[in-house]
């Protein structure tokens, strides 16, 4: 992955940036009727449920490939302190799903695994998953650092970038990963400004003029009333 490409991908994850129905009750079937999706219910349309089901049943990677992915994932993210490894978080299963869901990933992943086995065979006479710890380190060190990698292993660097990306994204989107990261949201809350200690640490403060335009959360449940000029009265 060249720098511009990696910059682009870096941003993906960091920014979020005929039936007559009368009255309120729909007579149509709910989106999830008829099948019990193995993926759980997360607001899917029937066609999406069917697609998920099919993908889950499909197989793409061979056993050998899956074992190699498992070894790689745990080298990328081993267990650390109280938090489990990529395998503990089910990352290989996630990568196996992604390869089926995003078909454009198939050749880079399969070919990359083959490239790595080939490299291991040439250097150590065995495939990657069977290498020793020091052999793994030697193989990864030559492809894990894009800035100092030699052009000879360019394809390996690209593959390892992909594996690292998928491993991290697969890990930090699990409960284990979110706990490890410390993300605190996705739950009912009342946002009432940056904590004072954080403001102090950053040398920032709310100015009074701005705060006067903001909600006093004590009054959020009172029904809003205005005068004729749009001045809020409560």
């Amino acid at each position, binding site marked *: 992955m060249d720098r511009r490409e990696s910059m682009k991908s870096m941003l993906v994850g960091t*920014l979020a940036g005929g039936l007559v129905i009368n009255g309120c009750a729909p007579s149509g079937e709910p989106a999830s009727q008829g099948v019990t999706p193995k993926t759980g219910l997360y607001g899917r349309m029937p066609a999406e449920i069917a697609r998920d089901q099919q993908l889950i049943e499909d197989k793409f990677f061979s056993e050998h490939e899956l074992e190699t992915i498992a070894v790689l994932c745990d080298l990328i993210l081993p267990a650390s302190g109280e938090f489990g490894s990529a395998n503990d978080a089910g990352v290989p299963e996630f990568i196996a799903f992604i390869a089926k869901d995003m078909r454009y990933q198939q050749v880079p992943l399969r070919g990359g695994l083959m490239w790595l086995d080939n490299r291991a065979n040439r250097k150590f006479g065995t495939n990657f998953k069977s290498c020793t710890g020091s052999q793994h380190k030697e193989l990864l060190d030559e492809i894990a650092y894009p800035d100092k990698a030699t052009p000879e292993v360019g394809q390996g660097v690209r593959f390892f970038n992909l594996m690292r990306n998928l491993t991290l994204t697969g890990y930090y989107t699990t409960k284990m990963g979110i706990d490890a990261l410390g993300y605190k949201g996705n739950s009912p809350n009342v946002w009432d400004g940056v904590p004072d200690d954080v403001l102090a640490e950053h040398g920032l403060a709310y100015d009074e003029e701005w705060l006067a335009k903001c909600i006093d959360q004590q009054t959020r449940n009172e029904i809003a009333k205005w005068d004729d000029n749009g*001045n809020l009265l409560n």
Partner: protein
Amino acid sequence: MQIIESPKVYDAIIVGSGAGGGMATKILSEAGLQVALVEAGPFYDPTDPKFMTQLKWPWESPRRGAGSTRAFGDFDAAYGGWEIDGEPYTRTPGTKFDWFRSHMLGGRTNHWGRISLRFGPNDFKHKDVDGLGDNWPISYDDIKPYYDRVDKLIGIFGSKEGLYNEPDGFFLPAPKPRLHELYYIKAARQAGVKVIPSRKSIVTKRINDDRGVCFYCSQCSRACSVKADFSSSSALVFPAQKSGNVDLFVNAMVREVSTDSNGLATGVSYVNKEDRQEYRLKGRTVVLAASACSSARIVMNSKSGQHPNGIGNGSDVTGKYLHDSTGSSRSFFVPQLMDRKIYNEDGVAGMHVYSPWWLDNKKLDFPRGYHIELGGGLGMPSYGFGFAASEMNMFVGEQTGGYGDKLRDDVRKYYGATMGVAGRGECIAREDNYCEIDPNVVDEWGIPVLRFNYTWSDNEIKQVKHMHETFEEIFDKIGAIPLGDKPGKDSNYGIADPGRIIHEVGTTRMGDDPKTSVLNKYQQMHEVKNVFIVDGGSFVSQADKNPTWTILALSMRTSEYIIEQLKSKNI
């Protein structure tokens, strides 16, 4: 195949249940009119657990929320996207336009950003200011009372600022800025760029007993289960159904408006997507609100002896003057935000602050303004999180790449340390940016599809170039580092392809002259007095503002005009 006709004659048949159609449904049904609301997609209710994506965790999706089937990801509440299976559209070679459709009850209002900006006095009469484009046949004063009522009916937070072309309304109080927004405020002020609280249709303070109050999950794009954001479904259509005067038809794809021998509309015919049969509804009036391009498509496909060029399209203006907002974006690494303390920073969706247009075009090399939106913060991880996690090491003199425990440190170190900014600007409507009926292609319902023809002009490209200069100027004030390369001339300064900002309007524009407009100032067809179009199609120009609030105000005004016209038997 026989066309199945319903015996009931409705006072109004409303096509499309988004902002314009939802408002028309509410106003007309509550006035006692018998209304048929015809929606091309399925039923959807954001408060029903069956449909809910709000508060789901990334691991509940096997692809962790990636956009394999929905353009904005698994948890986004828009069914559809820029491509829909079985419903193609085409483009004239050498031009671009990407058409976003969301067929579902409530349409695109279920997932939009809720940025709700009134047009100002200049926005309705911009030709008077710079000689370009055309004036609207109405002024800000004509529509102000309706904006005021929309504010109170639906709920919008914001602040009174007294800016001439960014008129104040009846605002709920704004949420406090987050940490990254405080940095933006500081930087923007130093760069001389105006920055004020956002204006969004999110209920930060209760407005009635039917709608809930925001509980700050940052997920308006998933549609709110307590109805604290504006979705046409929960804020307009469901309340309207309580009148008992609304028959809702879902999965009903309208083919055409039918007419009598006098050329007046008699109803619509539609394909029921479930049994693939064609049905006809009869009505005294037809209100199109299918979205600017979908309504134009229905108009152009409604050909008859009286209307050989499509209903009410004797002027041949339908489809022309299509315009979308300009857009371009950039991201920055903010070193001060490295290694931040982590706390629950979820707020309302998107941004708590923004920059309205602050400059005078007389001193610039392009016409018309843009506003700046921003993003950042300690968001919930989803597919893509952690990609190139260690790339920012290059800015702090450390090695990029790697594996093992160091990666965990890098993920943590840079979490919440980037910000994104985007400009959204006004494109001047041109006759030669248009959609038309493709003479050779139909969709799976047998309905002729649209062919688009759209190009950006120098005006828009220069505007976007200015956006990028501004972005760097602002972020330079706080020592932030721009990510990636600044887009140059070769990429037209990173201007998003037309249609990508999803503010397309103008295809059945209003005006006083029937030769140069499709609708009069009440969104009534010049040539067919019982057909109205209340979506973005009627816009003469779009300002640099998101169109929804203006669609709502105009639809409210038109709906009351329809009631009056029916009462006085003018239609």
